[in-house]
């Protein structure tokens, strides 16, 4: 991580913020209005088109909010959110700094140790002031050079707006328009930053792109926005998130991710989400209301989503594919775990528009404690999608007798040549299974972890190797104490 650079950015922006005078800060404390939008855009030195877009989004959102059109259909419960009680521009987001790891919640520290995260990395995650010397700027630099050689653009969204406005203008909102849904509108109006990737024609991105290596990665968070474009024949694999629990003071997270794949292009997007889930009694925790969608615009293009969702108090997320190009392919592989009082309503939408489009959906939901886990999926075959095929497999695993698993599969077929398969199962980790493994010598927690990993195997094997190993460890840790 290039913490040196990050620190530099932070301090310089701090300075800038201070320079603009703190009066301004006083004038816009909490709440949202057009002035706040203008300010955000000005702070980021955005071109006019961005401001216009944000304002349109804001007006749309404000009308929705006035009409109380916040979506209510998800199978989750939470008290009403006061949108005027949120600070939308907190400048460079800075976590309260701790002097040393000793000040950190011992529970989080213990998790870091279990995950085997190096000490300096622990400090970065926890927001401890770091010694800039340790940082491996060289890693990030080498990384950037290698990408530049191939013409791959990988930068923060703000940089992209400044340096590649034509690409941003062309594709921003082309998959998730600002009118898409309540939270997407909010994000469009106020998004702070995120990632931007452009892989040029015929280029196979030479390495997996990870937020981890992106300069300014520590700034991401509350209202993140990501845009990835794979030009004709390009390939890119993008990793998002981190297995380590991330401390964050913001409760509402509303991110938007847009993917665009042109002819013969392929995008693989992998997520490990482990935001703070709240405590064992269900107090606190992040509300993670995310809109993720990919458009297979070109022929023979392919978009794969793989997600391992273990964090957040509430997850509301449907990474989807719009299969426009003929022969295009959409995939969704998901593990969602809810423990204690966590709630997840997650799934996917596969919209088949082009001919011979194919989609695969594999969803594994695990509920423990009082967790409530909902799969919600839509497979839609449009009139013109001759020869479309879908395979959906949707499995739920229950641990204990206080949790819940729910499934809402929607299927809409308007072309009689479509072939659809849907398999679903619900099972319980049985005392039989655990006893069998314990009789062979495995302690209860190892036994449970083995059963869970077996259950999730189809999804884990879609993850890049290193992520898969971490994801397995993460699941075991997230389930600690839920059995026996």
């Amino acid at each position: 991580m290039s913490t040196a650079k990050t620190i530099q950015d932070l301090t310089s922006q701090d300075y800038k913020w201070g320079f603009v005078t703190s009066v301004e800060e006083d004038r816009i404390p909490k709440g949202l209005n057009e002035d706040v939008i203008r300010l955000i855009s000005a702070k980021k030195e955005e071109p006019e088109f961005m401001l216009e877009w944000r304002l349109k989004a804001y007006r749309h959102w404000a009308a929705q909010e006035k009409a109380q059109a916040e979506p209510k259909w998800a199978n989750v419960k939470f008290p009403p959110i006061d949108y005027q009680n949120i600070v939308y521009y907190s400048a460079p987001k800075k976590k309260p700094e701790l002097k040393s790891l000793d000040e950190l919640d011992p529970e989080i520290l213990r998790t870091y140790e279990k995950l085997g995260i190096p000490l300096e990395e622990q400090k970065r995650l926890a927001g401890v002031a770091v010694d800039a010397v340790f940082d491996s700027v060289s890693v990030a630099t080498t990384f950037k050079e290698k990408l530049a050689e191939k013409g791959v653009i990988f930068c923060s969204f703000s940089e992209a707006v400044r340096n590649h406005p034509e690409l941003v203008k062309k594709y921003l909102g082309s998959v998730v328009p600002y009118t898409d849904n309540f939270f997407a509108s909010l994000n469009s109006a106020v998004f702070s930053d995120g990632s931007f990737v452009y892989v040029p024609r015929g280029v196979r991105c030479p390495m997996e792109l990870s937020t981890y290596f992106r300069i300014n990665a520590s700034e991401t968070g509350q209202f993140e926005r990501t845009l990835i474009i794979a030009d004709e024949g390009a390939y890119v694999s993008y990793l998002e998130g981190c297995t380590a629990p991330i401390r964050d003071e913001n409760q509402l997270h509303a991110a938007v991710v847009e993917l665009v794949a042109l002819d013969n292009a392929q995008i693989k997007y992998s997520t490990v989400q482990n935001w703070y889930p709240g405590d064992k009694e269900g107090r606190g925790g992040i509300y993670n209301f995310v809109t993720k969608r990919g458009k297979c615009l070109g022929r023979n293009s392919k978009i794969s989503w793989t997600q391992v969702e273990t964090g957040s108090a509430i997850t509301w997320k449907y990474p989807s594919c719009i299969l426009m190009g003929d022969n295009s392919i959409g995939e969704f592989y998901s593990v969602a775990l809810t423990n204690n009082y966590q709630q997840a309503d997650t799934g996917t939408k596969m919209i088949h528009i082009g001919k011979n489009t194919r989609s695969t959906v594999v969803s594994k939901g695990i509920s423990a404690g009082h967790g409530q886990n909902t799969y919600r999926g839509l497979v839609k075959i449009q009139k013109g999608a001759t020869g479309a095929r879908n395979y959906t497999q949707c499995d739920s695993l229950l641990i204990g007798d206080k949790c819940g698993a729910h499934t809402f599969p929607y299927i809409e077929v308007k072309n009689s040549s479509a072939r659809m398969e849907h398999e679903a199962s619900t099972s319980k980790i049985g005392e039989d299974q655990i006893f069998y493994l314990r009789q062979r010598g495995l302690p209860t927690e190892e036994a449970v972890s083995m059963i869970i990993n077996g259950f999730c195997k189809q999804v884990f094997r879609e993850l890049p190797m290193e992520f898969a190993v971490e994801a397995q460890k993460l699941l075991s840790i997230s389930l600690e104490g839920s059995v026996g």
Partner: protein
Amino acid sequence: MSMLEIRNLHASVNNHEILRGIDLTVNPGEVHSIMGPNGSGKSTLAQVLARRETYEITQGEVLLNGKDLLSMKPEEAAGEGLFMAFQYPVEVPGISNAYFLRAALNAVRKYRGQEELDAMDFLPLLKEKMQLLDMDERFLNRSVNEGFSGGEKKRNEIVQMAVLEPKLAILDETDSGLDIDALKIVAKGVNTMRSKDRAIVLVTHYQRLLNHIVPDFVHVLVDGRIAKSGGPELALELEDKGYSWADAPVAAISK
């Protein structure tokens, strides 16, 4: 010292007493067969010894190599060298046999303070044991018991036993559901495991298994008690006269 010492063991499930005072001593090198009609408590005895928590121990004690078995968790009993072949082996989808067995062996080795085996050391060992039970190479990557036939599941139990090399092996109705060819393979596997340091307890309903694995002692369990004990000839006599014969004196009194 005896391998297993059971003294006046009483066990219940839901306040219903199933084991009603069992006494049994098993020494290293011995093979004991526990026979009995359905519902006599054979499987309960096996599961209590393997430390299944569904059963409540109301009286008695059990020593495994001199240690209090009834205070052990299932994984501790396994670490102490107790193995049970299940009557109904459980499926573990998504976990390969090779992975599972290495994890099990290493868990047991860890308990004993022995070094864990890596995949390179483990694979030849597993393959050797598989040959013993006529298991196909494909077995390695198949999920534990998933989609296995009844016979394959039982053979798999014996492969596991061979890999884990227990001191005390309890085989719970391993012969049930086996055709004669599979029965012979399983018996061959068990016979190879016989040694002066190891004790084996065969729980079975039928005498036919004992044609292939000849026990040193046969005990007849009726109504949660051992009604009769003897040598291998007792099994033949039972086959001839039926379980009511073994139970006769007890039954006469209770009526």
